[in-house]
């Protein structure tokens, strides 16, 4: 039997792509990619039936490297492409990896709507609190007061809590992990992929090159160790006060609810439609009375 890293390198990485990959030394994106590949492997998914989509950003380069059906879409729109793919071929396992900017800045609307709509999709968000690729400008998850290339005086806006936002918007499954917790992350990813409905796994990651450096958080090692120190499990967190939770990273499964999944509902509709069709079409025929419209 091949060993873990060998399986990944030999079966899941695209060797015709130039490795080493483009990410900076110590960047958490690689750690997430490893966990994701291990999760897919242990779920026994057929590579031909897996789709990995991304938007634009450092994280957006992930699909280039992995041997699935892969697509690097436009900035912020990955979930919309994934929606089309999933609805066209519901049998595929469609995962979408995004950065915090990609998913919640320009892509914020698609994100909350995907959650609301509850298709059977998995969204993996690598939250590094900055726009890594374009040079460290503030993102929707940059903490209040932080420095970035566009907030040299200290950031005046507040950060989204991505996982909470996803849950409120309607995601069926929401979990959080960090790049320090690589095994836990794999576990969360597996749960998310297996979940029927829209699942979100937020992974706290390090961009020491853009964010860490400017905020005196140290390099990759210090940042990743920081995640270890700041993390508390959801079980513990529920017993802590808001004050105690200040600055902490709550990890684990934050939401897991059962509700109708649109992907399946559409199938039901298709069946019904064939029957009802005749009647409704008639009734639907507009009587031509139009109102002022824009």
């Amino acid at each position: 039997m091949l060993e873990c890293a060998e399986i990944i390198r030999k079966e899941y990485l695209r060797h015709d792509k130039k490795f080493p990959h483009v990410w900076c030394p110590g960047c958490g994106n690689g750690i997430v990619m490893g966990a994701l590949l291990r999760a897919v492997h242990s779920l026994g998914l057929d590579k031909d039936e897996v789709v990995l989509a991304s938007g634009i950003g450092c994280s957006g380069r992930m699909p280039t490297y992995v041997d699935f059906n892969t697509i690097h879409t436009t900035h912020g729109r990955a979930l919309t492409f994934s929606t089309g793919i999933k609805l066209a071929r519901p049998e595929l396992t469609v995962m979408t990896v995004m950065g915090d900017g990609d998913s919640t800045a320009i892509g914020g609307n698609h994100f909350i709507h995907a959650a609301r709509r509850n298709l059977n999709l998995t969204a993996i968000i690598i939250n590094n609190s900055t726009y890594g690729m374009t040079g460290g400008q503030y993102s929707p998850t940059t903490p209040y007061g932080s420095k970035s290339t566009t907030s040299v005086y200290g950031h005046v806006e507040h950060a989204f809590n991505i996982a909470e936002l996803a849950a409120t918007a309607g995601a069926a499954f929401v979990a959080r992990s960090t790049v320090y917790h690589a095994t836990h992350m794999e576990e969360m990813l597996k749960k998310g992929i297996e979940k029927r409905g829209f699942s979100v796994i937020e992974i706290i990651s390090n961009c020491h090159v853009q964010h860490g450096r400017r905020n005196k958080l140290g390099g990759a090692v210090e940042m990743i160790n920081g995640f270890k120190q700041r993390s508390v499990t959801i079980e513990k967190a529920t017993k802590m006060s808001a004050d105690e939770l200040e600055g902490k990273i709550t990890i684990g499964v934050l939401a897991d609810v059962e509700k109708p999944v649109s992907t399946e509902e559409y199938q039901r509709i298709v069946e019904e439609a064939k029957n009802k069709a005749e009647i409704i079409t008639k009734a639907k025929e507009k009587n031509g009375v139009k109102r002022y419209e824009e």
Partner: protein
Amino acid sequence: MESINESERKKILLQGNEAIVAGALAAGCRFFAGYPITPASEISEILSVKLPEVGGTFIQMEDEIASMGAVIGASLAGVKAMTATSGPGFSLIQENLGYGCIAEVPCVIVNVMRGGPSTGLPTSPSQGDVQMTRWGTHGDHPIIVLAVSSVADCFSVTIKAFNLSEKYRIPVIILSDEVVAHTRESVTLPDQDQIRIFDRVKPDVPSDWYKPYADNNRGVPDMAAFGDGYRHHVTGLVHDEKGFPTQDSQEIDKFLRRIHTKISKGFQDIQITKTHLMEDAEVCVIAYGSVARSALRAVRDARKLGVKAGLVQLVTLFPFPRKAVDTYLRQCRVVIVPEMNMGQMSREIGRVNQAGCRIVKHNRIDGQLITPEEILKHLTTV
């Protein structure tokens, strides 16, 4: 305007928007994502009823950007897909439309034109989006734009749009306008088995050999869908034959030129014009969309008054049918170009007018359809 084979049984009264739906379904469209907007909403509404009936999927997305993303996604997963919108929505899909061009994704976008710019005149007809459909997304890109002028057109041009889209792996835009969209006409739809349908060419090589962006004699690479067993990469970055991003000047040049030449290779197939009474015409009207109908009336009336008038109706607006138009520019003394805009196609006609033919623009931007009288006046006075 098309001569249709009359048959009691299949003759129905359809609105333009309904006919687009009928055409799309006949062409094999099985996915629609859209966002409502006047005067295109009926297309969404009717497809929301009809698509499930044929096992397809309808989804209303959160906006037009998302709709275009979903359409591209569905097409990459192997399903013929479409969206429909009007100017404001079209302005929003530009970025993803460019993605469709560079990733060579077949899909059809209907733009039912209303008055612009901006929210403009939501319920009035216009032809103000012509240049926008050609140039709206950034960067050099090929694209196909077809215009409809009647309910029968809506059906047949929509089928043509899907066929071209699949054949050339390119987004195809159908330009309709508020008049065509909401006019009801009696049409006879052909039987499904009489309709020529083109499906994208799928690869037949072993999956290891598959190069999703390799050139071939058509210039159009074979296209596998996600899930077909040909795992491959799709990106909006300029890419090499295998689909992976490249920074190599030669590869870049080769790729970008190929996506342009695949279209020029197909000009004969793609560039459609129709003519009426052009054999001996000395004066002609070049028109498209609903205005072509006013023009036809005017030409007929002019003939009655002894003017040797003719009509050239552009179905394909882009790639601009230079060759055909050139012929008529050489044939005629004067060419009249009536448009419900400030002169967007007359620019193109002027551009190719090497014969030095006199071109008379007639532009109306007040939200009203140009009448036959207005055109007739030109025909009889020039």
